[in-house]
């Protein structure tokens, strides 16, 4: 750019980093170097890379490398949910055992069927609630908080609950159609009610509803719960759809702290 290139002497002083160079000269040299490749080449003699490398190499061996530690978490499961999901698996196994022994509700009511709607409620509460997740406030404040993360975590819960129940169904002979819809409806119901009153309260309310309407009567009167009859499939479908609509409409609730706890 400029016709006046710096003299060898001022380049050498600049290179050495002398601190007595007058400020105007220093700036002139520096701004010239930014725009003039030939002068940069004068400044940096070829063996410099070799020299730098020779100095660096011994230091590299002593510098600790960043460990390639494998991350031990997963973006799908809530870190707080692990013990609860283990419990869900245990409850499923216990239900199968009770069914096989025919102890709890006699021959005519399957315990697997009775616990099916309750299991995902536990998992969902563990995945997104202030009471069960110690880092809930931290998580709620992040950009990822919101419906996509909640759906992810719910999918992870269902990925444990549904195969577990399917296996239990195969062992005990309880049909898929009987438990799947109530199970999904309770899952979405927890989230939907949770957007209104907080997930913890929603889980408690739905557990109470389950105890009085589904699990109570059969245990008392030894007959298949009315609500789990296949004739009620449309009802469960309607509840599921309504729940999904509420969840989507109230999705911003998942980006805020549950203040009403």
């Amino acid at each position, binding site marked *: 750019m400029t016709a006046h290139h710096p003299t060898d002497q001022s380049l050498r002083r600049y290179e050495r980093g002398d601190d007595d160079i007058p400020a105007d000269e220093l700036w002139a040299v520096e701004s010239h170097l930014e725009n003039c490749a030939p002068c940069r080449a004068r400044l940096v003699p070829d063996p410099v890379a070799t020299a730098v490398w020779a100095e660096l190499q011994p230091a590299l061996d002593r510098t600790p490398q960043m460990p390639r530690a494998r991350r031990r978490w997963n973006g799908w499961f809530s870190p707080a949910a692990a013990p609860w999901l283990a419990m869900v698996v245990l409850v499923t196994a216990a239900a199968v055992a009770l069914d096989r022994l025919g102890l709890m509700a006699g021959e005519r009511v399957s315990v697997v069927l009775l616990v099916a709607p309750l299991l995902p409620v536990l998992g969902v509460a563990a995945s997104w609630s202030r009471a069960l*997740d110690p*880092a809930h*406030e*931290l998580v709620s*404040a*992040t950009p*990822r908080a*919101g419906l996509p993360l909640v759906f992810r975590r719910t999918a992870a819960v269902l990925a444990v609950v549904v195969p577990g129940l399917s296996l239990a169904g195969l062992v005990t002979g309880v049909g898929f159609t009987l438990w799947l819809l109530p199970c999904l409806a309770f899952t979405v119901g927890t989230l939907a009610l949770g957007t209104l009153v907080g997930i913890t309260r929603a889980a408690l309310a739905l557990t109470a509803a389950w105890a009085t309407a589904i699990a109570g009567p059969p245990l008392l009167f030894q007959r298949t719960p009315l609500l789990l009859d296949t004739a009620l499939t449309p009802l469960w479908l309607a509840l599921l759809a309504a729940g999904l609509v509420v969840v989507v409409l109230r999705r911003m609730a998942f980006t805020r*702290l549950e*203040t009403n706890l």
Partner: protein
Amino acid sequence: MTAPTTYAWEIEARELRVKAGRRTAVDGVTLTLGRGVHGLLGPNGAGKTTLIRALATVVKPASGTLSLFGGGDLRDVRARIGYLPQDFGYYRRFTVRDFVSYVAWLKEMPSRDVPAAVQRAIDRVGLAERADDKLKSLSGGMIRRVGIAQAIVNDPEVLLLDEPTVGLDPMQRLRFRELMAELGADACVVVSTHLVEDVAAGCSDVVILDRGKVVFQGTPARLAAAGSGDHPGDSPIERGYSATLALPDRPGSW
């Protein structure tokens, strides 16, 4: 390097009212905060935590306006915030590195940047040697530092720290102030505390909150000048603090 900003203040609140349960904890706060370290002082129950929660966008204001970075999409705004809540909850079985990288993931940082950013954040709080230890094996002061590391992992432009110095020993507090000064050079750092000396030493600006309202905003020197020998306190700034809150006249104060 950084793109020119299109806003005057990182944080701009006008007549902000925020509820905590049924109580109005923040009652008509008007505040503008830019780069630097801002100390948020006030007696217990003055609304500091609620105000910080509102600034962190986890609590929705009941009325008034709050704009961070001149407004914009919630998700983009949150990606530029670092937040350490007062009750910092963590996963006991996670290692320091796992926890900070999980938060980095939650902050939607590009995955190739995460390992280096995590290492840097852990280094800055002086936990490099414990990086692969489980959180349950750390002391209370170290846990606080993990909390600070997770808050700064995304190089936030607004950093909100609620009572960060609780549980730190005197040496760690000094180191913490240095770190705040470093971060405050190019970010807006809001530190809530009830320790007046933290503010005196480390903050460029003080905001005093009392019963939900801002009763003082200015430099620590101006706060110190507000007090006189008659006001209770062991240092000029403590006397200034007492004078601002008019402590002796408060009914039921102690």
